[in-house]
């Protein structure tokens, strides 16, 4: 019987890696196609989360090495931890700098709040 566990894991790993790469490609296309900075951030940071997760799962399945599991887990944790903060900082700065296409917004509940308040340093 040629269809044993290692083959199954390899096939699953290949599927995960391909799917992950597909989401990374979609992210790249999104950066080119979407109209403004905040929309592009959705494309650039978010399909990348699942792309990264799938690639890491694929790697874990194909390496099958307990020693590498720790470092792969760290990759996921660090990526998720930092992309939240980075995404928020870029989004906040771009909104405050006026880099927003207001004509694309259906609802905007922040601009009024921001224009009312006194300028200050800390949030």
């Amino acid at each position, binding site marked *: 019987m040629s269809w044993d566990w290692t083959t199954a894991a390899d096939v699953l790993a290949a599927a995960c890696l391909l799917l992950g790469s597909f989401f990374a490609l*979609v992210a790249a296309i999104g950066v080119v196609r979407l109209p403004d900075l905040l929309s592009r*951030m*959705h*494309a650039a940071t*978010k399909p990348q989360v699942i792309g990264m997760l799938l690639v890491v799962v694929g790697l874990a399945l194909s390496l099958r090495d307990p020693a590498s599991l720790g470092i792969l887990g760290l990759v996921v944790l660090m990526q998720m931890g930092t992309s939240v903060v980075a995404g928020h900082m870029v989004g906040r700065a771009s*909104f405050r700098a006026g880099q927003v296409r207001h004509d694309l917004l*259906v609802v905007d509940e*922040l*601009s009024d709040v921001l224009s009312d308040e006194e300028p200050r340093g800390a*949030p």
Partner: protein
Amino acid sequence: MSPKVTPRRDGSVKPSRYRAVQPGALVWLTLVWMALWGDVTPMLVVSGLLLAVVVCLVFPLPPVELNLTVHPWRALLLTGRFLIDIAVASVQVAGVVLRRRPVRNAVVAVDLETTSDFVLTGVASMLSLVPGSVVVEARRSTHTLYLHVLDVDDEAAADRFRARALAQEQRFLAAFTPRPDPATEAGTA
């Protein structure tokens, strides 16, 4: 909250290293050290612990008192639901990127129910990691999150997103319930 300071003999003050070495941080940093080496040996545990102490002393952080009740089973459910949300939303965002129709967005304010900073941070992070929404502004004073949401066609869709965000908060609260803090209770009364 003002930082703790210790006075020197000549009267000047320096920031205190009091409780800079916290056990939780030590365990975590040692685990990271062993994960980076990809091995567990007594030598690595000892060197990792030493390095963790040095890191804690060089980069001291204030201790965070979470004051939470954790429900492990509900936390597991929260994680599972979160991964499903990520998968579904990733496909949706991919659809938005690849389709021909131009995209319409919204900036939605979500007023969270709780006053806990930890819940605000946790909910904001999870909403941010789920594709299609990014936190552009967070108000600690009113516990309001302002999120930029991709692909919102009308007001009804914005309201649906707000309901989703509040449901996320409820799931988070079910998993991590803040204990009532005597200090803030007395302050608000």
